[in-house]
């Protein structure tokens, strides 16, 4: 087990938000923190991968439009990393539903949440992905 995982407080669920738009990232942080989640942010694919490896979050929220590599490519890297295989990855995207569903399934995400996020439902949507065997979008 990695040191970072051992050291951090396990009382809270750790959410990694990978999102290049600071306003969107801060909104997600604010909403999820208010519901008791611990939130860490990454603003591009390379730092998102590094943070995921270092921190081992309980769930990853992944914007599909990132400035270095796009979110699908990052999802592929995350799924290719043995230590991260079981962490739920939820894409956050403005793609049309059918395209989003096809893309996230084929890239190994557990589902997607449509942009713009619905602040009232967002935390519940995340919670649903943390339940075992829930791949619903």
């Amino acid at each position: 087990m990695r040191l970072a995982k051992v050291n951090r407080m396990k009382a809270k669920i750790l959410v990694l938000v990978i999102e290049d738009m600071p306003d969107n990232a801060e909104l997600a942080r604010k909403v999820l923190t208010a519901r008791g989640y611990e939130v860490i942010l990454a603003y591009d694919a390379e730092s998102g991968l590094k943070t995921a490896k270092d921190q081992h979050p309980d769930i990853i929220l992944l914007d599909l439009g990132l400035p270095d590599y796009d979110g699908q490519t990052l999802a592929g890297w995350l799924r290719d990393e043995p230590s991260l295989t079981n962490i739920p990855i939820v894409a956050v995207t403005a793609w049309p539903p059918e395209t989003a569903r096809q893309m996230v399934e084929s890239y190994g995400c557990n589902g997607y949440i449509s942009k713009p996020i619905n602040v009232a439902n967002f935390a519940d949507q995340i919670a649903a992905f943390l339940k075992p065997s829930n791949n619903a979008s």
Partner: protein
Amino acid sequence: MSLTSADDSIRLAPASQFTIEQLTALYNKTRVDYMVPMPMNVARLADYIHLYDIDLDHSFVAMQNEEMLGVAMLGVRHQRAWITRLGVAPATRRHGAGQMLVKSLIAAADSLHLPLIMLEVIKNNAPAHQLFLKLGFRETGELLVLRRPPRTSPPDPMVADAQRLDRTDSLVLVGHDRGMQPWTNQSESLTNAQEVSGIRLTLADGSRGWLVYQRQKFLLTRFAFKTERGDPVTVARALLSHLHSQYPRLDTQIENIQLGDPHLPAFYDMGYMESFRRVEMWRNASVG
């Protein structure tokens, strides 16, 4: 060159007057509300400018007072130009900045005596499409952006006499006549790219062809391909089977594949799927 709008509130300045950091921030600001925003970081935009021969002296930024409202860039190659990265910040659209930018790029291409201007517009981006039609562009085709996820079951490589090509040999093939390709897939784009290599193969029935590609850290991209003899679908299937057997863990994204390309069924057979479409448009100097 410094142009102003009819009411003098918007003026254009050459993009070369700004830093790459400023242009990157502006470009991202103009795309923030797109369904497919495709943001860039500084390194990616710098690479884009190099790959696609963007001439920043003939590209423009729209300004209002000291605020950067929009941007449009011009690629320049032998006898042709390319309009790209056009965008206006959402809050300042519909005030003529986009039209000013495109008109200025057309004027710049004319000043360079380039007889053809090419561009692509995302399908269903009606305002941009209408603007280009108004300014004399005509539709020449529909283009596909395709992806193939990593870890898609790699096909067994089809039996063939296959040869891996280094960069030099690959670029020789790409330099051969492949017809008029979209700008991103032209020979110059691959010549400007790093990590280019290729596969050439001959099947038992004598069919043969080649595929040239760029291999990035986690991604295969920028394909150029040609069937020299035989059925294009069979040749493409064989080429892709060899490519993806070689790189089973890499994601693949290719753009601007012409909708009528005869190789296309082989891509779908090999697990590619459509991300979105663009419309290709051209404008000849004699038009408008």
